[in-house]
């Protein structure tokens, strides 16, 4: 096998393990329905993976630095087997447990892959390709997950990860890493400004990678495949970012953070419920992700050795950020969802009461609407079901459209404050970049 093929297989495994922090976002509504759990509980499918990855990255990096090849093999096997168990899980607790083990395997795989790439390709090239794989994984994750959820079922997100991981074992076949070539040297202290900015930026990006998907699927009732097409704007923009011609780590990290902040603030100020409104903000977020995450990861790795350990710090910072984002944003979103539900219920009641319908028709519509609202059990109700089987007169059509409009308004506004808070986190990341610009520039 050529060196190029080995590198591709390794980077694909790294991208898969890093995509795992966001790949299930479009599948969350299906997982929520499959196991009959609440939004707050289903978010643990994301938090458990990210928390374990954040906690496990540094110890895994120390192990990887000593025995990269053995740690990589172990990481691939653990990640692959745990992925298969996730896909076959028959209950929610087993899924959560397998996700935790998957994260342990992911931490070993990601850090050992960096160490191995550093040995074979040199520090600069290894850091560049490893960071790019991480950005690609995070950006592509939601779109790929959404497409798989609709076309094959959410289980296939995990079932397909297993062969991708195991394929990376081929990259190790017949290869022995000579310890003499291993990076040895002084472990410089972690790059605090870059890692802090990375944590804040990752926390902000949680809104784009998690809440935006929920808004599209649960709020605006899009199919996962449609939502996957919509959120594919982000990875396309992320891949285009390096071609913009922004040069220098401070410029890339600074303008990247500002772009992410601008995109998230725009998502918090959506003027309508059309998915098209999300496209310009996603372009900003994708460009910002491509510029800032790559630049900050580079800054944290450049001139520091061993690479695996500093790579471990970047992984820990990123996934700590994701966990922080979920801890901060999910309660805000849930509280706002409850508030907006009450507002929408009152606005919907007014529409039915004031409708130009005979009183008996109003009673029938009201009963059916209340039935679907109750059946939704704190989720967003399917108003169309309340009108199924009715002969639609213009007056009845007006009532249905009015109710759907109120529902769209409530769903959109329920996410608004979370996006604005996430925008604030991205601005904090910008401040950290500006304050620590001298160290980042070095």
């Amino acid at each position: 096998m050529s060196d190029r093929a080995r590198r591709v297989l390794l980077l694909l495994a790294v991208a898969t393990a890093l995509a795992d922090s966001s790949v299930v976002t479009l599948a969350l509504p299906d997982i929520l329905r499959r196991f009959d759990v609440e939004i707050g509980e289903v978010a643990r499918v994301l938090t458990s993976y990210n928390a374990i990855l954040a906690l496990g990255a540094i110890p895994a990096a120390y192990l990887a630095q000593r025995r990269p090849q053995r740690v990589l093999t172990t990481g691939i096997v653990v990640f692959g087997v745990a992925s298969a168990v996730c896909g076959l899980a028959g209950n929610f607790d087993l899924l959560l447990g397998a996700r935790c083990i998957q994260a342990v395997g992911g931490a070993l795989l990601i850090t050992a892959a960096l160490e191995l790439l550093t040995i074979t390709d040199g520090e600069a090239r290894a850091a560049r390709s490893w960071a790019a794989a991480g950005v690609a994984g995070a950006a592509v994750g939601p779109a790929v997950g959404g497409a798989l959820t609709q076309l094959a079922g959410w289980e296939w997100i995990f079932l397909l990860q297993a062969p991708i991981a195991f394929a990376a074992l081929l990259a190790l076949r017949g290869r022995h890493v000579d310890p003499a070539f291993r990076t040895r040297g002084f472990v410089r202290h972690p790059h605090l400004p870059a890692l802090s900015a990375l944590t804040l930026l990752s926390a902000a990006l949680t809104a784009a990678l998690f809440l935006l998907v929920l808004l599209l699927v649960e709020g605006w009732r899009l199919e996962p495949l449609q939502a996957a097409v919509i959120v594919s704007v982000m990875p396309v923009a992320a891949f285009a970012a390096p071609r913009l011609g922004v040069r220098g780590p401070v410029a890339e990290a600074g303008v990247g953070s500002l772009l992410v902040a601008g995109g998230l603030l725009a998502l918090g100020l959506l003027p309508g419920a059309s998915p098209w409104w999300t496209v310009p903000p996603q372009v900003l977020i994708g460009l910002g992700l491509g510029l800032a995450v790559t630049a900050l990861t580079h800054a944290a790795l450049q001139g520091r050795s061993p690479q695996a350990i500093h790579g471990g710090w970047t992984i820990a910072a990123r996934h700590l950020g994701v966990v922080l984002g979920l801890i901060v944003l999910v309660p805000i979103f849930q509280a706002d969802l409850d508030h907006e539900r009450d507002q929408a219920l009152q606005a919907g009641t007014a529409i039915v009461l004031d409708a130009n319908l005979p009183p008996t028709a109003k009673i029938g519509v009201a009963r059916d609407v209340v039935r679907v609202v109750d059946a939704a059990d704190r989720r967003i109700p399917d108003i169309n079901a309340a009108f199924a089987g009715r002969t639609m007169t213009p007056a009845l059509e007006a009532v249905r459209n009015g109710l759907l409009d109120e529902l769209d308004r409530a769903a959109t506004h329920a996410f608004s404050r979370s996006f604005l808070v996430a925008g604030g986190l991205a601005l904090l990341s910008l401040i950290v970049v500006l304050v620590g610009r001298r160290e980042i520039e070095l």
Partner: protein
Amino acid sequence: MKPVVIALSVLALAVPVTYAAAGGGDYKPKAVADPCEPRPWNAQGGVTGVAAQLALSATDGAACRLHVSRESLVLALASRADLEAFGAAHGLTNTEIESAMRDGLQRALDDAQRAKAIGTLTAVLLGQAVQRLPLDGLLRALQGTTLNW
């Protein structure tokens, strides 16, 4: 600073500002009408329509007295349990709710009489009934018209 950095920074600020200018901050469920503001009498469908309009007007009046929206009161009237939860949430006793509902029904009868939807005799007889009916009877009277959700 390079032009591309300036251009991207301007873009990052321009998109949220444009969204705000397009009404982004105001895209939320519409506020419900103030129940203390008079609404036009709009009865449809004969006696049933008049009864429905009476119930709506009565809930407006009661909601105005209780300083809540008509819609939240209507939702509370779905059942006795909902009404008790509503009372607890707004710090209202059964007596206060009962009194407000009587006032609301009386206001609705006055409105109906002014709109010539009912005659004077009917208004007086219904007014007497409203003053004597117990809370459950008032609830049933409202639920029997439009509010049996």
